[in-house]
Structure formats: structure tokens, C-alpha cells
């Protein structure tokens, strides 16, 4: 009896880790952008393009790491676009983000049709060319550690390392201090000689890079190809996780684990013969998102200058 419970628990933990990973990358992207004062609801679109580029490069090149980096570059280009509109031209950040959310899937589909003989789905990457599984076969068969770690892809561990690196960067380095100051009070930062534009560009591009990683963590690890419905809202859930996590990397991680966990739970429950239709169960992550946001978002505080374009006063 206890064995069964532990085994089931281990399985839920395993699926939680797996499903949280793309969210964690993307959420970190949101953290860095919004801490510099630029809202990025384009995470979804950036994730989609990352997922496509990751899957396509993974298929054609066969090296998952190169594909992963390519996905980051593609996301970063979208980030550059967002920065160009919002930082240089002071455009409305929500509108720019929405545009990117249309652009990402559109371009992904367009390229997919060109490179995969008109198909909207990329061809599957063979298991050997997917992300490696570092702890595969290390733990004895049937042990709890085996259940949890055996099938985890390298992206899972990379995501956890990245959370630590982001935390260290934001709170322990001078550039992190400056980045946060730009998101809180850009005028103050400017009067101290900090280059607001440069920092925001950096942050928004990095945000795209990590959303791209998030997409690739989906298409190169959890599944092995890209299809238009692959991301379906994960970018928005990552955004919600960032808010729920109070704009902090460590908070975002916990929130992503919660959302990933609810997804894992949905998958886990799916194997039983319930009287509840599977569609309802797969709604679980989204319902939890809404409930959590209603319950907690009021108490978390965004960076003061989040969403406000910075314009220098008329100098001339």
C-alpha cells in the first residue's frame, strides 16, 4: 500500500519536473524583462518560435544543444523586435507583445510549410538526437530515484541552474542592481549615469532568448517535434507564474512547479478510468492559474516603472 503511494508520488514528482521546465525558462525570461521595466506578454509567441526552431534544427542538424541555442537566438531576435518597439520608440508594450504573439506562430507555420513539404508539423527527432538524459540508468530499476530522475532531460537540470544564476545576477552583481533600479525608477538611474536604454535592450533580448529556450525545452525534450498546438498557452502560464512568483526568479520557480505539478497531475489522473472526461482534467492547469492569480496577485508588487516607456526630458 505505502509502496504504491510512494511510487505514485514519485511519478507525480517526475512529471512535475518535466512539465515545469519549459515554464521555468520562459518565466525567467519574464523576470528579467519586467525587472528592467518592460512588460513582455509576447513570451508566448517567443516560446512558439523557439519551439519550432528547436525542433527544425534538431531534425536537420541532429545536435540538440545547437538546436537549443538556435531556439534561444530565434527568441532573442523576437526580443530585439520587442525592445525596438518598446524601448526605442516607446510603443505600448502590451500591443507590441500581442503583435509578437501573432507573429511567432505565424512565422513558425510559414517556415514549417516551407521546410517540411507543406506540413504544419515538423518531422520527429529520433530519440538519440533529443536532449540527453544525464541520469538515465544510474539508479537501480524500480527505485524511487529511478522513477523521478531516470527519464529527465538535461534541460530540467539546466533550468534549475539558471534559476540560481538569475538570482545571483539580479541580487548579487552590480549589473543586477542596475537592472532593478532601471525597472523601479529609470529617471533616478539616469541621473546616476546608468544607461537605461542599453539595460532595457539587454533585458528584453535575454527575455526572448529564455522564452526561446522554454519553447525548445518543449520540442526537443518533452516531445520530439513541433506542431501548432504544442505551446498553446504555456507562455501565458509562465507569465502568470512570474507574477505569482512576485517577479523573482526563485518565486517564479516555485510557481512554475505548482503549474507544472497541476499539469503532471492531469497526466497522472488521465491514466485512470474516471467518470470525468479527460478534457475537464486537462483544464486543471489553466483553472489553477486563474484561481491562484485571483487569490494572490493583489499582494504582489510589480517593479514601479514596469510597463512605462522611459523618455528623457526635452533637453534641447
Amino acid at each position: 500500500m505505502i509502496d504504491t503511494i510512494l511510487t505514485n508520488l514519485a511519478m507525480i514528482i517526475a512529471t512535475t519536473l518535466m512539465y515545469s521546465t519549459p515554464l521555468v525558462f520562459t518565466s525567467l525570461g519574464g523576470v528579467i524583462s519586467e525587472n528592467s521595466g518592460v512588460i513582455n506578454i509576447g513570451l508566448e509567441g517567443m516560446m512558439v518560435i523557439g519551439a519550432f526552431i528547436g525542433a527544425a534544427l534538431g531534425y536537420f542538424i541532429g545536435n540538440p544543444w545547437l538546436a537549443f541555442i538556435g531556439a534561444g537566438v530565434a527568441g532573442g531576435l523576437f526580443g530585439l523586435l520587442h525592445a525596438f518597439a518598446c524601448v526605442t520608440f516607446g510603443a505600448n508594450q502590451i500591443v507590441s507583445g500581442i503583435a509578437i504573439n501573432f507573429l511567432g506562430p505565424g512565422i513558425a507555420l510559414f517556415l514549417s510549410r516551407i521546410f517540411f513539404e507543406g506540413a504544419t508539423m515538423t518531422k520527429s527527432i529520433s530519440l538519440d538526437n533529443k536532449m540527453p538524459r544525464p541520469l538515465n540508468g544510474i539508479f537501480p530499476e524500480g527505485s524511487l530515484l529511478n522513477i523521478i530522475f531516470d527519464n529527465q532531460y538535461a534541460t530540467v537540470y539546466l533550468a534549475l541552474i539558471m534559476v540560481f544564476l538569475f538570482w545571483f545576477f539580479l541580487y548579487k552583481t552590480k549589473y543586477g542592481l542596475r537592472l532593478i533600479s532601471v525597472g523601479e525608477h529609470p529617471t533616478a538611474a539616469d541621473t546616476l549615469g546608468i544607461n537605461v536604454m542599453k539595460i532595457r535592450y539587454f533585458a528584453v533580448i535575454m527575455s526572448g532568448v529564455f522564452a526561446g529556450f522554454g519553447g525548445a525545452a518543449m520540442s526537443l525534450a518533452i516531445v520530439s517535434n513541433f506542431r501548432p498546438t504544442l505551446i498553446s498557452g504555456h507562455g501565458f502560464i509562465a507569465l502568470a507564474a512570474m507574477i505569482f512568483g512576485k517577479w523573482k526568479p526563485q518565486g517564479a520557480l516555485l510557481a512554475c512547479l505548482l503549474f507544472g505539478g497541476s499539469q503532471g497531475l492531469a497526466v497522472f489522473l488521465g491514466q485512470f478510468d474516471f467518470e470525468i472526461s479527460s478534457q475537464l482534467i486537462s483544464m486543471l492547469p489553466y483553472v489553477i492559474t486563474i484561481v491562484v492569480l485571483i487569490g494572490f496577485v493583489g499582494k504582489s508588487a510589480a517593479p514601479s516603472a514596469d510597463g512605462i516607456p522611459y523618455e528623457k526630458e526635452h533637453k534641447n
Partner: protein
Amino acid sequence: MGYKNATRSLTKVIEMKNITKKFGDFVALDSVNLDIFKGKVHALLGENGAGKSTLMNILYGLYYSTSGEIFINGEKVNITNPNIAIEHGIGMVHQHFMLIKPFTVAQNIILGREPISKMSVLNMKKALKDVKEISERYGLYVDPNAKIEDISVSMQQRVEILKALYRGAEILILDEPTAVLTPQEIIELIQIIKNLTKEGKSIILISHKLKEIKEAADFCMIIRRGKHIDTVVVSETTEEELASKMVGREVSFVVDKKDKKAGDEIFSIKDLVVKDNRNIITVDKLNLSVKKGEILGLAGIDGNGQTELLEAITGLRKIESGEIKINGNDITNKTPFQIINNKIAHIPEDRQKRGLVLDFDISENTILENYYKKPFSKKGILQYNNINVYANELIDKFDIRPKKASKMARTLSGGNQQKVIVAREITNDPDLLIAAQPTRGLDVGAIEFVHKSLIEQRDNEKAVLLISFELDEVMNVSDRIAVIYEGKIVGIVDAKDAEVEKLGLMMAGGGNK
């Protein structure tokens, strides 16, 4: 002795020559000269919008001058951004603090010049040591680990000064430093300024408060509408002389007020209890009444329940218990709309937040309370012709400048913004006018105007409740003075019999009940 003789033996650290600054067609500064001497306090006096801040923003590299030259220690410099100003030893404490609220004091001070160990990793140990060192050296006590959002305004100001000193500032620009301080804190600030000059720092003090200039400054340059009017040795001049040079006409400091007998009680508060945002009782069983034809001044130190009391009367905050009546009508917990219709008008504490819609023009702002009434509105459609006629009447009567009803409220100077509010509220012909901090941040000309308006209300047999942190103002304008302390009225005195020391004691919680 004269300015020329007084400065003959001093070292010139800054020389600004023929500085002109145009914003489009508007000449903000017209060939202004300014000399700053080592170890001296140089005041910059002028009305709101005279060009004081513009001149300093040019010196600090936030604006470019249209023409003119700047010399620092005799060397010509081209200050195109704050970094260059900082390199030349210029530091600026802005009127609106430039602090990152969630950061600690130490983080704010080191921001942009962070001590690091390896690979850009912050060395907070060194930061704390550095901050402690300069804070002790200049007698500017701060808690380096406290977060900005948790410390008082005067402490925040010290952090700003430390920020400049940390960057090696030799010349410190203080932009309206006392606007946000209590009287006690102002005394402390003047002491800090004296300590700094003793250490050889030069101070530029932007202000329109004559008393402070008299107390703190060595020299005073007066600017009016972008033009350099005069530079004087402060010890050889009087406040009256400074004021008339600043405004361009004689200004009376004595509020001109006839003796007058007050009428019947018209407004009363009984056992009022109000809580603040943290759910703490801040107005505690307060009793107060105002009569027709009198100005009741409410004196007290900021944070003793004034804001909550004001919000309770005007319907902006829930009343826990107690009763407020005007003309015998109960207005407890009524909506602001109902309260306005009970003939209570309100000049709010924060004119930009509550007094005006900054992105509306003057004419729209004048009808905020009456927009739905005839002739401003017919069958739900705004009648802009009538609104403009009305607005222009007010502009003429209250001398609002510029004389243009379509001007956005945001673009007006503080004094003119306040005039729009005063015009709107008084023209509503209220039985009770509540004026909260009505002269905060205004220059002498505008202060005179506001005081005159309040007294006119009283002379017309209306009641006025004046809430102010400026004791001088309360004493000069009021007929009776009530002192509030910790949410209670701790004493009421006749203005004629009031003594500063006694009131000060009551405001601090001592004295008779």
C-alpha cells in the same frame, strides 16, 4: 559692504556665463550669470517657473543650454550628461527624490558606483563600510540596511545628500530641500548645510522660502521670469527686500484681516473615529466645530490624523463611528457627491492627485463638480461654449496664467494650478470651505492670493477650516486655532492669544488638554 567686496577674497569654484535657454519660442533663461564660491551657501531665489531649476538642470547636465559657458575651477567644461557633472564634483539633490524604494539605503548610495569584489559581484561589506564612513564624517546619520520605503522623508533626503558625497561632490545643489520637511527637520537640515560648508563644500540652495534663505545662505541670487535681477549678501538684506525683488512688487507678510465676530455654529464633528489604511485608529473620538464667519485653523505635525480627518469629512474614507453635521444635516458616511451638494468645498492636500485632472484643460477642471448642471450640460451633452465662457470668467477673476482656457492643467505652474482649484471651489459658494495645505510649495505671491481668498470667504459669513503644517500660516490666517495630536483635539485657543511656544508644545503632545 556689497556683494563685490564680500566675494573679493573668495575662491570661485563655478562660473556660469551668459546662460540662455529656450524651449521653442519660450525663453526660460535669458543670459544669466552665476558664480559659486568655495565653502559658501549660495541661494537661488525665484517664483515657481522663474527658471531656477532649469539653470541647475543645465549645470547638472540634464538640459543643454541654448548658449552660454560654464567654468569649473577656472576651466571651461561641456556638461552634456550627469556623469560629466558628477566627475567634476557636482552633486544634485532633486526636489522629487531619486531613490529606489525597495533598495536599502546603502544600495541606493552605491548605485552606479558599486564596490565589487570579482567579476562584477557586489561587495556589500565594503559598501556598508564606505557608507558608514561618510555618514559619520558629515554627521548625516542613516541606517545603511534600512529600506527606503521604511524610512522618513528627512532620512531619505540625507540619503540623497550622502549619494552625492559618496560620488565625491564638492558642490551640492539642493532643489527646494525643505518643501517636504517639518519645521524641526528644517532646523536639522540647516545644521547639516553648515557642517558641509565647514568641510569646504559649496552649496547651491534653490528655494522660495525667505526665512530659510536668511538663516542658511551667504549670498542670494534672485531670478524673475528667466532674468537675473540681483545678487545680494544675505546678511545685508531683509526678507521684505528679497520678496519684492523676487515678485517685482511690494509684498505684505502681514495678513490683512479685520476683526470680526463669528456667527452661529454651522459645522460640527462629534466623537469621530476613523481608521487609516493599516486599519489603525488615527482619528480617535475627535470633536470640533466651526462657526459662520470664522477661520478655524487646525495645527499639528504631519501624521496626527489630519489626512484621515479630512478624508472622512469629504466622504473619501469610511467613518467607524461618530457624527458629522453641516447646517443641521447629517453627512456621516455620505458620498462625496452628496457632501458637495451639502455645500462643503474642499481644497485638497495634493493638488495634482486630488485637486485636478492633470490631462484636462483649465476649462474642464473648473466644472468638475458641476459638469452635469445647466448651462454646462444640456440633455447630457456638454456645452463647451458655455463652459469656456465660465472658465474665462474665472481666469480673469482669479488671475490664472496663462490666460487660456484650453491650457492643460499639467502644464501650469504649481501656483496657477492651485488658483484653478481655489477658483472652482470658492465659486461653488460653499458654506464650509476646507483648505488642506493650501499654500504648500507656493511662492509668496501665490500664498498671498490664497490667504486673501480664505479671508474673503470668512468676511462673507462663510466657515473655513484650514489644515496646515505651517504654524506661521495657521497663526496668521485663523481666528481660532485647534491643535490635533494623535487623532484628538488637545486644545483650542484664540489666534490673538496664541503663542508659538505653547502651540509647539501642544503639537508635540505636551501642555494642557
